[in-house]
C-alpha cells in the first residue's frame, strides 16, 4: 500500500507492529497453500479409491492363444444380439471340466476349478473394470457390427445390401475402450471409488482426468467425443441411456 494512503495518525511503531503481523499471516497463508496442494494431489486420491485383486488371476494371453475366435470366444453375443460380457463359469467349464482334467500347471486354474467349477459352477465374482452405471445402455452390437463403425474402421467397407455376409464380426476395435487387456498376463488390481462405487477406469488413472489413450477414461464426454467423430454429431441421449 502506498505511503500517501496511510493515515497521518500512524506512528512508525504501529507500522512495524502491523508489518510484523502481516508477515506472519502471509507466511501462514503460504504454508496452508502448499499443505492443501499436498493433500489434494497426493493424499486425496489414496483415500478416494479402494483396491482389490480379482478373485482369480486371469491370463488373457494364454487364453487368446488357446482359442480360435479371439475375444468373442468367451465374450460372445447372444442370439438376441445382446452381449454376454463376462463368460459364465459354465462357459469356462467347457475346457476346465474338473480337477482331473486340468489344462495346465497354473495354480490359478486349480483354484478356479475347485472353488467354482466343482462347486456346482457357481459364478466368479469378477470385478468389471469397464462397468458402466445402471443408467447406461451400451450396445456392443452397435460398436462391433454397425455398418457405421465398420466403415469407420475400414473406409473401403460398403454398406451391405440384403444378404448377411460371413465373418461380420471384427474385434479390431475392442481396445479402443478396453485397452489391450487381451495382451495381459495378469489382472491388475481393481480400484473402486468409495463415494460413487465406480471403477477407477471410468474417471481414469490420472486424478486430474488427463488421458493419453482412448481407453484411459470412460466418462460420457469420452463417448460423445467418439460419437461426434463417427456420426458427425453428439447424438440424442437415448442412444446410450436407459
Amino acid at each position: 500500500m502506498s505511503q500517501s494512503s496511510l493515515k497521518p495518525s500512524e506512528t512508525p511503531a504501529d507500522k512495524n507492529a502491523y508489518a510484523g503481523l502481516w508477515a506472519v499471516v502471509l507466511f501462514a497463508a503460504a504454508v496452508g497453500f502448499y499443505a492443501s496442494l499436498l493433500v489434494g494431489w497426493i493424499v486425496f486420491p489414496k483415500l478416494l479409491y479402494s483396491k482389490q485383486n480379482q478373485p482369480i488371476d486371469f491370463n488373457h494371453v494364454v487364453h487368446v492363444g488357446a482359442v480360435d475366435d479371439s475375444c468373442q470366444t468367451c465374450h460372445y453375443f447372444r442370439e438376441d444380439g445382446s452381449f454376454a460380457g463376462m463368460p459364465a463359469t459354465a462357459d469356462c467349464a467347457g475346457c476346465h471340466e474338473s480337477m482331473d482334467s486340468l489344462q495346465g500347471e497354473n495354480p490359478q486354474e486349480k483354484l478356479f476349478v475347485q472353488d467354482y467349477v466343482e462347486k456346482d459352477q457357481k459364478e466368479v465374482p469378477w470385478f468389471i473394470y469397464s462397468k458402466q452405471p445402471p443408467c447406461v445402455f451400451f450396445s456392443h452390437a452397435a460398436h462391433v457390427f454397425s455398418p457405421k463403425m465398420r466403415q469407420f474402421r475400414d473406409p473401403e467397407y460398403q454398406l451391405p445390401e440384403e444378404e448377411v455376409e460371413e465373418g461380420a464380426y471384427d474385434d479390431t476395435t475392442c481396445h479402443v475402450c478396453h485397452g489391450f487387456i487381451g495382451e495381459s498376463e495378469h489382472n491388475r488390481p481393481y480400484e473402486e471409488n468409495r463415494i460413487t462405487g465406480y471403477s477407477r477406469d471410468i474417471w481414469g488413472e490420472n486424478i486430474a482426468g488427463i488421458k493419453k489413450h482412448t481407453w484411459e477414461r470412460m466418462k460420457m464426454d469420452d463417448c460423445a467425443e467418439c460419437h461426434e467423430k463417427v456420426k458427425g454429431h453428439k447424438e440424442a441421449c437415448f442412444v446410450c441411456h436407459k
Partner: protein
Amino acid sequence: MKLDRRTFLSIGAGAAAGGAVGSLFTPLPWKLTDDLSIWSQNWPWTPDPARGEVTFAPTTCELCPGGCGVSVRKVKDRCVKIEGADGNPVNDGGICPLGSSGLQILYGPTRIKTPLKRAGKRGEGKWKPVTWDEALGEVAAKLSDLRQKKLAHTAAVYVNGGEGTVNNLFLRLATVYGTPNVFVSRTAWDTYADALLHMQGEYAKPAFDLENSDYILSFGCGIIEGWGSPVRMIRVNAQVAEAGSGKTVVQIEPRLSNTAAKAGKWVAIKPGTEAALALGLCHVIIREGLFNDEFVSTFSQNFEDWVDEVHTEHRGFKRAVLEDFPPSAVEKITGVPRAQVAKLAREFAAAKAPVALFGTGKGEEAGTLYGAMAVHALNALMGRINQAGGVFMLPPDADFNWPAPAMDALAQRSLRENRIDGAGTDRFPLASELPSRLGEVLADPKKPYPLHALLVYAADPAFTLPETEKVLAGLSQIDFVVYCGSQMNDTAAMADLVLPDHTCYEKWQDVPTPPGFARRHIGLTRPVVKPLFSTMQAGETAIRIAKAMGGPVAESFPWSDYIQCLEESMGARLADMKENGFWEAEPDKGPWYTAFKTRTRKFDFAPRIISPAFPDTKILLPTYEALTPAGSESGFPLTLIPYENLRLAAQNVGDTPFLVKTLPDSSLMNQESVVEINPATGKAFGLREGGAAILSTPAGETRVRVHFYPGVAKNTVALPKGLGHIGYDDYLAGKGTNVNALVGLLPDPVTGHNAALIARARIVPA
C-alpha cells in the same frame, strides 16, 4: 511481538485462507463435487436390477377363469414381465391388467411361503410356520378322527369350480371321505348350465360363438368387464368398433358401465328385472311371428299349450308369454319403454346371427334359473342353438376316466346325511349345493348339525359370499378350517391351517375351458421358475392328505403323485398341451334332431321335473318373479347395486398393487370406497362430490365417499365390488368396503341360489 490470542487468530485465518485458495488448484473440490453428484445418481437404496440373458417361458394364467396363455419374460432366472402369448386362441397376445401384474403375486407379500398354523386368535394374522409333514399329518388326523366318530358329514369341502383335475381331486376326496357337504362356487354359468339341463336334457356349459355373431344382446353381462374370458370378450367387443363390421352389441343394464358405454346401444333397466324384458322380447317375436318356425314347430315342445297324462291342461310357453308379458306390462316391471321393447325384439329377430347372453356383471352371482331359461328361450325362438354365431353345448372338463372311488360303508352312510345348507331337500329340490346360504346356516342356531371341519381350495368364501359378517362368524365356529391356495386371501386369513399352493408360474396343472368360450380349450400351466418357497401343488396336497388317511380313502387315489394323475387324466390331450400350451376341440355342432337329450329329443320350452321331491309334477315355465330385497322403502329409499370392472378383481384373487394403483379416485379415495350416485339424488340427500357419507342397508353400514355419476339412475347407488378385504397385504387390505357385507341373501325362489347383489339402502352425509 507477543503471540496473543489475536495474533493466533490472525495466523489461523491466514493459514485457512491459504489452504482454501490452494485447494482450488487441486482436483479435490472439483472431483468431490462430481463424485457427490454421481453418488446421488447411484444411491445404494435405489435398486439396480441384475442384467443377464433374456428368455421367454410360456404358461397359462390362473388368476381368473379366463385361461389366457401368457409368456413370461425372464432375465437369468428372474421373471421380469408377463405378456400375452401370441397365437393363443383365447387371448392372442393380449393380456388383462390383472394378468400382467401377476409377478406382484409371484414375488409379492401376499404369497404364502410355507405351511402355516394359526398362532393367535382367528383372523388375527399371527402364524407359526410348520413343516409339510406336520401340516398334512394334522389334517389327516383331524379328518380321520371325525370319520371315526361317524361325523364325516360334518367336514365340508369348498372349491372354486367343478372342473379341472385339482378341483376334482378335492371333490373326490370329499366323496370317498363321505361328506355330502361339498360347496362349489356358484356362478351364472352354472345357472345357464342348469337351464340347458332342463331345456335340452343335458348338463352342459354354454359356448357362445360371439366372434361370428352380428347382434349380441347382453342381459347385463359385463362383456368387457370380466364376463367370460376378459381378453377374448374385449376382442369380440372391438370387432364392433371395426369400421364397416355389421356387428353390434346391445347392453341391457341398470348402470352406464364400461360395457354399456362401449355397446352399440345401452338399454337402461331396473335392477333385477332382466328376465321380464327377455320374456317381453319373446312376446313380441311370437306375436309378430318373427321366430324360427322350423325350430319351434319341429324341434321344440311345450311351446303350444299341452295336456299331461292325467289330462291336466297346461299353458304352453307361447300363451304364457303372450298373456303375461305384453310390452306394456314389461315396461311397468323393467322401466324400458314399450316401444323400445318391440324395437329390440324386431332388431334381434332381424339380425343374421343374433345371440342373447345371460349373467350380470362378471357372472359371479348365480342369478335366477328362470332368468337363464328366459334368455335361452329367446335364443331358441330364433333357432340360435348349434348355429354359427349362436350357442353350443360343451361337456364339463372333468372327463378324466378316473377309477370309480372306493366307497366304504362309513362313507356311503354319511353321504346319505342331509346337506347342512338344505340343498336337495324338499326345501331346495333343484339345488345340488347352496354355498350362498353358508353364512345363514352357520349362523342359524337351529342348524341340523355343526360343521367341525372345512377344507377350502382356491376359493374365498369369506370374501365372495353374501352376508360377510354371518360368514365370518360362521367360519369362526368351525373347529378346523384349512385353506389350500397360493395367496393369503380373506379365507386364508380366517383359517387354522394354511397349505400353500404353487402359483401358475411354478407348477404343472390343467386349466379348464374359459367360461363361454366357443370351443373346448384346456390350458396348461407350466413351471416358469422353480417354486420359490416351500409350497406344494394343491393336487399333490389333496393326494397326500388322502394317502395319509389310509384305507379306502387312500385307495381311491392310486396315483404316485399329482404329475402322474395329470398325465393320466389328460391322456392323449397332454401332447398338444405341452406343444402349444393348450388342447382344443370343437363343440358338438350336430343338427337339431340330434342336438337335444330330452326324452323326446326335442327342445323343451317348459320342462317338467318328475322327482320324488315334488308330490305334483313341477313345471319350469320361464317367467319373471320379482325379487324383493329386505328393508322398507321408507327406511331405505335407495337401491344399492354393485359395479364391476377389470380393475377390480373380486373373486378368489384380489387386486395387485398395480391394479389398486389404476383405480380412479371415483372408485377408491384414501381408504374408503366411493359410491356412485345420480347428481340429482345426491343433492337431494345433501351430499357433495367427494364428500364423506354413511351408507347403510338392513345388512350393515359403512363410511364411503360420494361421486356424482349421471350413469346411475335416480335413487340408485352403485358400489365398486372387490374392495374391503381383510386378508392380503397393506396394498389392498382394509381399503374400501366389501359389497357382500352390505347385501343380504336374495334367493332365487326356484333354486335358492343367490339371485343378485341388490339391497335397499339409505345414505346420509357423514
